[in-house]
């Protein structure tokens, strides 16, 4: 026997149109299985209505507050541990680098000394080269032609005088105002 759509109507909590309600009633008279579902569901629904809601043990709010405090403390502890771990990690890394360097020095001290002497010598050589270049430039005569130098000096003097005159005019105007 096909129980659809009667099962849907049977378990629907919305009011059925009259023709559907009548068809369902007719089906229920003939169908033992659907009748059993109907009776069982009514009993389940009745049971739902008679059980009272469960309540927590007294002091729920206090327990919650304690839990919140515990959670905060755990978070603080976690942060402190992270800070300690990061600091310790950095210190270990620095110690490792230092250790490697110390080991290198201890392994070959003469070689290290020679390397530093070589570096110092190359630095002195660079300085000597710079000195030579400056001397060469100074001895090679004037870079700018004499006429151009005179022209530039004159131009700069003119600009300076013009600027001074403007500045004086501006300040005296202020005084009148």
């Amino acid at each position: 026997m096909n129980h659809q759509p009667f099962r849907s109507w049977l378990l629907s909590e919305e009011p059925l149109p009259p023709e559907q309600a009548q068809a369902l009633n007719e089906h229920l008279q003939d169908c033992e299985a659907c009748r059993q579902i109907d009776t069982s569901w009514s009993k389940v629904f009745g049971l739902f209505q008679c059980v009272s809601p469960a309540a927590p043990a007294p002091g729920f709010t206090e327990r919650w507050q304690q839990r919140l405090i515990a959670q905060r403390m755990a978070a603080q502890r976690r942060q402190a541990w992270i800070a300690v771990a990061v600091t310790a990690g950095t210190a270990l890394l620095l110690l490792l680098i230092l250790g490697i360097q110390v080991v290198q020095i201890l392994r070959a001290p003469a070689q290290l000394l020679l390397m530093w002497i070589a570096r110092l010598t190359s630095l002195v050589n660079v300085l000597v080269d710079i000195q030579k270049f400056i001397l060469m430039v100074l001895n090679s005569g004037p870079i700018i032609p004499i006429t151009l130098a005179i022209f530039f000096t004159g131009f700069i003097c003119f600009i300076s005088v013009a600027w001074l005159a403007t500045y004086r005019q501006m300040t005296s105007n202020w005084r009148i105002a």
Partner: protein
Amino acid sequence: MIQIEPEVIQQAQNGNQQAFTTLVEACQKPVYNLCYRMLGDPDEAEDAAQETFLRAYHNLRRYDRQRSFSTWLLSIAAHYCIDQLRRRRLTLISIDADPALDPPDLAPGPESAFHHSQEQQRVQALLDTLGPQDRSAVTLYYWYDFSYDEIAEALSLTVSAVKSRLHRARLSMAQTWSEQETTSYPTERKHHESPAF
């Protein structure tokens, strides 16, 4: 349903600890009851209810005051319990292996308490046959008078999905009830008929 002053929620959102404590006081019973119906164990329900309030406390700024506070809060509880039930399944601890539930002491007299606990156990046994989401839909529908829309909102489902889940759950519970009736009736009768020594 839970009645909460909007001012209290606003104060709690602004970081007022006392206001949030008021919310915990006001909502602990409905939240606990939902967790109990979902998980079926008083200790687990207590833990889930506590966790719900912690999550609500940390996410309170995200709560939209246009929505219902109880829907929001019970939605957190339902999602947490659904996760717990899924985890339970993953760890292969069978729900059926734990039939002897220990409901909280709600009624005063010993006889009444026994009767009560039997009813509670029967309800719990029925709910235990349902999947996590169907169980939460049934709980919110029958014990919290949530509408289909509210359940859909709380469980992140569509309204039609809620309707079909509820229908499926009703049918499943009715069938379970029928099976229990047919299997437990002879033993129950035997208990009644046997003389008390």
